[in-house]
């Protein structure tokens, strides 16, 4: 569970720490340094909106803003609802029913997370249209082919298929934690099955669902690759169009700042609507009884799970493989992606390590010295996490140019941006781990004469190790897939797998793009499988 995309609800799980007290000043200083990268681009982008608001919006009209806002909002709402339904259904089927191979199914519906949505979109393009894989297959048996997947429906399908796993991952533990006694009591008191679901089951699921939905909504808001490839107009696509279609960078910055405002409102709304709901970490007295499915329902369930797995996993992998094989057999020249692979893996690895290192002091501050100021630090890191990466990338690009030119187009800046964007993934893991360790063992160590440093080194960190590793794996996975900020901030010549996939697929060099995409998926699957899928049902 710890390796799951950070459940925001877990912040309320922590028990108040007995050693709550004043944190050492140095710890504070370090904590502040760690959140600077997260704070800087937000502040800068918001400022660029304020500045443009009073002077000049560079040809971006209110009508245009509303148009973008509407098209983006429609997609966000549609995908969020779809993923909530899909993710809850898969979670419920794989935890509470007597389907065969529940663990396998649960892993299979988690695996689509290794497919970045732009790779999914690429596969959708490669499977539809007159030259697509499905079209050729359908025509071979005398059926009409598929039209090119594009526009709203394509974007909706792509973002739903490659994001619902977040909801699944968050819902599985929530469903497992549900106390069956509550449901039985409700039924026993004469509540109908539906009413029980509505008044007892759903409220228990609410925090997980809200967290999952927020995660998905923010992802859709920030998605750039999929909507661009599938040609659906959203904010991020408009920002990129302004960036590449104009000489002046101001309109792109203005739109980015506006998008930041939207993202912050979403985060705020989620916190409001969750209220004080407590995602109680207690274990149920006994596991819930598994529901025996009748044969019709069982068939339906298998059909549902298989079609999701086929759509989100089998079909895209098949398409990428097909394009690779076909391209190579037709003699397409494919450049080696080994240098890109090495760059991707090393930059993701370094980013994961640095992020975890930055998360340790922050976790100690927020868990052992919880209070209003530490909460503020924490919400700053969350704000940066919630921002569209394209906006963060633009913010860092301009900030570096204006204030720290030597940083510009360096791997260091790229890594700072990754840390800023993904710190909460490592932080949440570390916080949960620290919360579970408790303070008594640390106090015992101190009582036996060890200093604070020795205690941290010999007691706390070794115990925290699995949580830190989980956080690192998650950051690694996310950085591997990250596209827009990498595109903007990479040093010249520093092409990563994601960049290569993007440049090849925007010119529709399917063979080249497919080779790079297959490599990216294969490498991403390792941390995901070992740290997420495997632990989920233990």
């Amino acid at each position: 569970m710890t390796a799951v995309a950070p459940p925001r609800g877990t912040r309320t799980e922590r028990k108040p720490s007995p050693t709550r007290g004043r944190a050492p000043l140095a710890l504070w200083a370090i904590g502040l340094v760690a959140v600077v990268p997260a704070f800087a681009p937000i502040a800068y982008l918001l400022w660029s909106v304020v500045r443009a608001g009073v002077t000049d919006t560079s040809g971006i009209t209110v009508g245009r803003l509303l148009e973008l806002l509407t098209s983006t909002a429609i997609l966000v709402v549609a995908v969020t609802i779809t993923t909530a339904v899909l993710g809850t259904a898969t979670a419920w089927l794989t935890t509470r029913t007597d389907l065969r191979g529940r663990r396998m199914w649960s892993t299979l519906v988690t695996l689509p997370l290794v497919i970045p949505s732009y790779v999914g979109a690429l596969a959708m393009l490669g499977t539809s249209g007159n030259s697509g894989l499905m079209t050729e297959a359908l025509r071979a048996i005398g059926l009409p082919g598929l039209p090119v997947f594009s526009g709203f429906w394509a974007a909706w399908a792509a973002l739903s298929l490659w994001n619902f796993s977040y909801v699944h991952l968050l819902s599985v533990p929530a469903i497992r934690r549900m106390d069956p006694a509550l449901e039985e009591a409700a039924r026993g008191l004469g509540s109908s099955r539906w009413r029980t679901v509505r008044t007892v089951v759903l409220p228990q699921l609410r925090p997980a669902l809200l967290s999952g939905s927020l995660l998905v909504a923010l992802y859709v808001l920030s998605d750039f690759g999929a909507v661009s490839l599938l040609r659906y107009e959203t904010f991020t696509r408009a920002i990129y169009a302004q960036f590449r279609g104009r000489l002046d960078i101001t309109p792109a910055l203005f739109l980015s700042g506006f998008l930041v405002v939207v993202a912050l409102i979403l985060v705020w709304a989620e916190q409001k609507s969750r209220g004080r709901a407590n995602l109680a970490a207690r274990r149920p007295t006994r596991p819930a009884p598994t529901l025996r499915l009748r044969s019709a329902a069982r068939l339906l369930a298998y059909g549902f799970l298989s079609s999701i797995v086929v759509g989100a996993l089998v079909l895209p992998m098949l398409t990428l493989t097909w394009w690779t094989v076909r391209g190579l057999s037709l003699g397409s020249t494919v450049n080696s992606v080994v240098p890109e692979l090495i760059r991707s893996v090393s930059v993701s690895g370094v980013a994961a390590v640095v992020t975890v290192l930055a998360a340790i002091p922050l976790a100690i501050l927020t868990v052992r010295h919880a209070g209003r100021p530490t909460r503020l630090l924490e919400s700053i890191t969350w704000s940066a996490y919630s921002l569209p990466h394209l906006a963060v990338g633009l913010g860092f690009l301009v900030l570096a140019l204006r204030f720290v030119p030597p940083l510009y187009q360096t791997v260091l800046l790229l890594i700072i941006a990754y840390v800023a964007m993904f710190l909460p993934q490592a932080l949440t893991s570390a916080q949960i781990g620290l919360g579970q360790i408790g303070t008594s063992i640390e106090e015992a160590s101190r009582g036996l004469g060890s200093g604070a440093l020795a205690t941290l080194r010999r007691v706390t960190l070794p115990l925290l190790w699995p949580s830190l590793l989980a956080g690192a794996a998650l950051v690694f996975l996310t950085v591997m897939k990250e596209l827009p900020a990498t595109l903007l901030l990479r040093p010249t010549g520093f092409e990563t797998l994601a960049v290569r996939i993007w440049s090849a697929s925007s010119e529709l060099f399917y063979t080249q793009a497919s080779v790079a995409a297959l490599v990216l998926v294969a490498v991403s699957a390792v941390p995901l499988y070992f740290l997420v899928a495997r632990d989920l049902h233990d």
Partner: protein
Amino acid sequence: MKRSVAFLAAIALLAACGGGDGGATTTTEELAETTTTVPAETTTSEAAAPETTDAPAEALVLYSGRNEDFVEPVIEAFTAETGIEVETRYAGTGELATTILAEGGDTPADVFWAQDPAFIGGIAKEGLLTELPADLTDLVDERFQDAAGQWVGITGRSRVFVYNTDLVSEDELPETVWDLVEPEWSGRFGVAPTNGSFVAFVTGMLLAEGEDRTREWLEGIAANDPVIFEGNGPIVDAVVAGDLDGGLVNHYYLLQRIAELGEVPAANHFFGDGDPGSMVMATGAGILASSDQQDAAAELIRYLLSAESQEHFLGLYEYPMIDEAGTPEGQPPLSELAVFDISLTDTADTLEPALTLISESGLN
């Protein structure tokens, strides 16, 4: 307490600068060492810095709006011949132009090679390019270079209307780009409004036909339900596959696809004389004024204009800029082409208005 402070400071220091070593390959095993013992941390961070990804000071930095597969072989040949290392940043011409403008005098770029005259004209107008040596500007026809000699054409390409020969009959073809605003073309063609070539074409139209006519055309196109793409290649692929009837693109994409796939049911259509839809545009290269490697930069451009490179571009169906190199196979010679009569140097002044017009028309 003091020791814990020191330990945490070490961690923070790593957090702040650990990434500076570029492509350091830190594995999880190394991470395991680092978190258990303090000294290991610092040594790992220092030791694991085998390669710096920043370009070494002497490497020439090229910002290329041209595709990697198109450029890379020539760059490799250049390095092999001159020993000058080149780091190339590949991205869209518009992205690179915006980036250079944002970078200003601090730009790491030494050479900018743009896909079209408009954006490089804009950069020249901002005073960011330097005057090229006369031996370079002498090589190229005046119609394809900056009047102030700040950039030269490397290759030429023509705007065309690519169409699917199964879906569109010859008598149905548009005679001018204006036909595309008519209802019979509604929803049947693709454009790439944020692509440099399209922007340059609108710039040319603005110069020749004025603001009102250009606005009218853009709004007519935007209202005619065009299929919006990011680039030319995907438009040609859609036309070849029969997913789309036609599109406004550059001439060589189709020729490359034919070379790759053999016969395809698609053809290039050149609009009538003087029509902006078929203007010939140069891909231009210039040297950044802030470059501290002016000689090496000029050397690169000289190599791009050498007979050898021009031959390579010809093989990729672009019009060479030096006379003796010839004409792309199956294409009308440059002299016979309905070259759109603009002084390309003026495109700089019309770039921003053109971009604003495109933006206001709702095409992007």
